[in-house]
């Protein structure tokens, strides 16, 4: 039997719906309802949908009986109309027929099939995009809503409780979620432009029938340009409405085959340069360029970001934001960009395989892009950019989540690739460990300027080591973990097996272990955000699980991996003061506390700034300042130093050492944990060694 395509089956469905609604109810609609409902029950694949049909149709039947059955009229002593009951039964059968037929169609054409055929079909690609990408985004939103909820719960925002409590906590949940999403909008739309989406009216598709792409294969190659791939002279970037430039670039250029490695700390202008070179100003980065910025010999502002995409690719730090959201495998995701360039299918295939090889993810080709780890996703973003065969590739902290050993090999692959193809590579990184993979820096960012040569050796403010005396501390413990076991719902093997640990006042412990060992889970258990399977976590002798959220929040401070999850005020001051909303302090004392907290976190003078306008390090410090205005018993820090350059790290270390609380910190940096933490707890295969 020939398979009926999604489009034909949709027509069939539409005819069925038309018949069910238009033909006389008896006998036609009744028979059709019987047929389609029967098919749902008899087709084994669709049988699981029978429950959904029943859950919808039975309450509906009750409603029909209630409204049209005449029972209530009888009860109230009003004359009932029997004809209405018959009409209502007919309508119910029509609805049953439509609902069952729809469930059959949905089962026959599951979302991946539907979306692939939408992209391969004649519908404008923008409609296919709108139907596809929200599905992926909704998944991301659900995951993030859970993180926001947890962050707010740890700040004492009630998530359960009375209606008014739930309704008021809704603002604390909805705002960080929505603001965060809109804040990422420019990054997401720039990424879609980078994939050349919408550049040509017709795109080619690997999913459709085999046909040559809309563009002829033997297209004359554009005249090869041999000058500098990027040349910047006396240029500056101005933020909207400002006259003082955010970034000045006296002179910078990169020739074909070359790699330019540039260093800069948090907020020094790396991303600004990446936006300038990829044509994202002003469409995705509001503001303007002054001076001369030429890419491939052309003025960069002469083309839009989208029009630059076949020649220039920029890869940004957060790989999740650069996923198209329209694909279901890694291979399809890498092919998405070349498909948009309307290339012939054979060429797309060879580009995809080459890009997967270069990025070292050929073995992940059939995986779902949404389920990759951070490092794998960064490699995917890199492969997607490489598949566009760019002549200028800009990498903006594109390796931050990739394992250091892989970084080296990727760096040499990319350098060789640039030399062989005559393309140019601009690599932007924070000063520190990444630099060893590349040659000496061609430039560095300092005080809003791009200067030649490497940055002066960073004066790393080495914080004094452990200040604790080595004598035995026999105070009453702050934190006691007793025989703690935990397993995720539905998992067969436990994540933590009988974990034991003790932390006394003022002690600091670093929690280390491989990816996925359960470090963050152990922190959540310590904060009482999740319940253990067995055993207990005691805070000053009291189980944390039994405390009220408000009390727990007053005693335990939790710094999450992604600090921006909790931000929902439009000023730094508002965000920090939120932590004091239930405290008995007077207004003056609160302001004084806030002033001190901002001073130690290096945020003085930024009170009225929007937290989401700050750079990654400052944003994290806002969360630190929110912890700093209060004094509890225990601080839990989950990868606290991930976003910091050496200068911010120094400031953070000073803050941490000044805190009176006992501290547990997750860290991947052995130097950091060895220098500042007298105790190291290492977690591996569910067991903790202290």
């Amino acid at each position, binding site marked *: 039997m020939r398979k009926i395509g999604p489009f034909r089956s949709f027509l069939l469905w539409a005819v069925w719906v038309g018949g069910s609604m238009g033909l006389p109810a008896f006998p036609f609609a009744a028979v059709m309802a019987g047929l389609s409902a029967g098919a749902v029950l008899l087709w084994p694949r669709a049988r699981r949908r029978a429950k959904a049909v029943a859950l919808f149709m039975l309450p509906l039947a009750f409603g029909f009986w*209630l409204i049209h059955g005449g029972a209530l009229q009888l009860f109230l002593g009003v004359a009932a109309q029997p004809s209405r009951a018959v009409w209502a039964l007919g309508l119910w059968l029509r609805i049953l027929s439509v609902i069952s037929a729809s469930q059959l169609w949905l089962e026959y054409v599951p979302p991946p099939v539907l979306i692939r055929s939408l992209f391969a079909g004649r519908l404008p690609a923008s409609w296919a995009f709108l139907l596809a990408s929200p599905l992926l985004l909704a998944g*991301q939103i659900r995951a993030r809503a859970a993180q926001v909820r947890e962050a707010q719960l740890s700040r004492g925002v009630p998530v359960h409780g009375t209606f008014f409590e739930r309704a008021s906590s809704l603002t604390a949940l909805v705002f960080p979620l929505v603001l965060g999403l809109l804040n990422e909008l420019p990054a997401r739309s720039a990424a879609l432009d980078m994939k050349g989406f919408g550049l040509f009216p017709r795109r080619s598709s690997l999913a459709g029938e085999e046909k040559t792409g809309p563009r002829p294969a033997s297209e004359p190659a554009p005249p090869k340009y041999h000058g500098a791939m990027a040349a910047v002279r006396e240029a500056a970037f101005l933020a909207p409405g400002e006259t003082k430039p955010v970034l000045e670039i006296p002179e910078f250029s990169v020739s074909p085959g070359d790699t330019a490695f540039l260093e800069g700390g948090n907020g020094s202008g790396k991303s600004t340069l990446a936006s300038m070179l990829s044509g994202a100003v002003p469409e995705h980065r509001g503001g303007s360029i002054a001076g001369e910025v030429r890419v491939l010999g052309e003025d960069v502002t002469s083309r839009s970001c989208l029009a630059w995409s076949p020649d220039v690719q920029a890869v940004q730090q957060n790989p999740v934001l650069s996923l198209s959201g329209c694909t279901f495998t890694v291979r399809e995701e890498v092919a998405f960009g070349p498909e948009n360039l309307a290339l012939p299918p054979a060429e797309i295939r060879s580009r995809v395989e080459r890009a997967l090889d270069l990025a070292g993810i050929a073995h992940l080709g059939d995986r779902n892009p949404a389920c990759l780890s951070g490092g794998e996703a960064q490699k995917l973003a890199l492969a997607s950019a490489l598949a566009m065969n760019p002549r200028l590739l800009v990498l903006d902290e594109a390796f931050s989540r990739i394992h250091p050993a892989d970084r080296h090999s990727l760096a040499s692959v990319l350098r060789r690739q640039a030399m062989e193809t005559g393309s140019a590579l601009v690599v932007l990184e924070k000063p520190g460990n990444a630099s060893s993979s590349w040659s000496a820096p061609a430039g560095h960012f300092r005080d809003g300027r791009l200067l030649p040569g490497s940055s002066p050796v960073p004066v790393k403010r080495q914080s004094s080591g452990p200040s604790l005396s080595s004598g035995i501390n026999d105070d009453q413990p702050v934190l006691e973990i007793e025989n703690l076991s935990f397993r995720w719902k539905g998992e067969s093997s436990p994540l933590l097996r009988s974990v034991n640990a003790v932390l006394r006042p003022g002690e600091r412990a670093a929690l280390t272990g491989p990816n996925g060992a359960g470090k963050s889970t152990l922190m959540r258990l310590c904060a009482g955000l999740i319940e253990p399977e067995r055993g207990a976590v005691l805070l000053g002798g009291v189980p944390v699980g039994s405390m009220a959220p408000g009390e727990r929040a007053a005693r335990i401070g939790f710094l999450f991996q992604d600090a921006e999850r909790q931000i929902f005020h439009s000023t730094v001051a508002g965000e920090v003061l939120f932590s004091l909303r239930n405290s008995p302090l007077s207004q003056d004392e609160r302001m004084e506390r806030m002033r001190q907290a901002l001073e130690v976190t290096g945020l003085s003078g930024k009170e009225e700034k929007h937290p989401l306008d700050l750079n990654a390090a400052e944003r994290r410090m806002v969360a630190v300042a929110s912890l700093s205005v209060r004094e509890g018993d225990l601080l839990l820090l989950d990868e606290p130093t991930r976003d910091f350059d050496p200068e911010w790290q120094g400031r953070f270390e000073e803050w941490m050492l000044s805190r009176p609380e006992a501290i547990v910190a997750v860290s991947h940096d052995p130097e950091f944990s060895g220098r500042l933490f007298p105790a190291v707890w290492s977690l591996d295969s569910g067991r903790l060694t202290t």
Partner: protein
Amino acid sequence: MKNRTLVLIALCIALNIGLGQAASTLKLPIFLDSIGTVLAALLMGPWIGMATGLVTNLLWGVISGPVAAAFAPVAMVIGLVAGLAARKGLFRSLAGAVIAGVVITLFVTLVATPIRTYLFGGVTGSGADFFVAYLTAVGQRLLQSVALTVIWTNLVDKIVACLVAQAVVRQLPGRIRSLFPGAENVA
């Protein structure tokens, strides 16, 4: 259409779906599934708001079944009216946003009532059926009973949606606000 607009619509649709599901898990008595539609309308105008509403319900249809798709005109009207209200300056004040919520509810009632009455016989399969049943039993016409129920179940939800969307646009960092021409209609 620019890719930026496409991504905004996609984000707002995802918000509608995500928040709609969150509201039902938090067991709140409101839907919260049109905040994204109002937001899109405030940022990019009535037509984009309308498109957001339409695709949201088409997608609900793909996820859960055709009932949501049948109500797509309702979602479109929410986006359209919210965008027009913003152009008239209703979102410049808190009171204005509440009025916008009331106006949206009225238009929603105009569109939703016939769909509910003629396509579903006024039945939803929820607790609202008791209300409709009572009203019809005491002599109200079916159309009027359904209209009253639609107003009663939507008023709070649409006012909340307008207030939340307004507050979000107000709290957007300037960097993002400057990308959207419509944002200046929300003071």
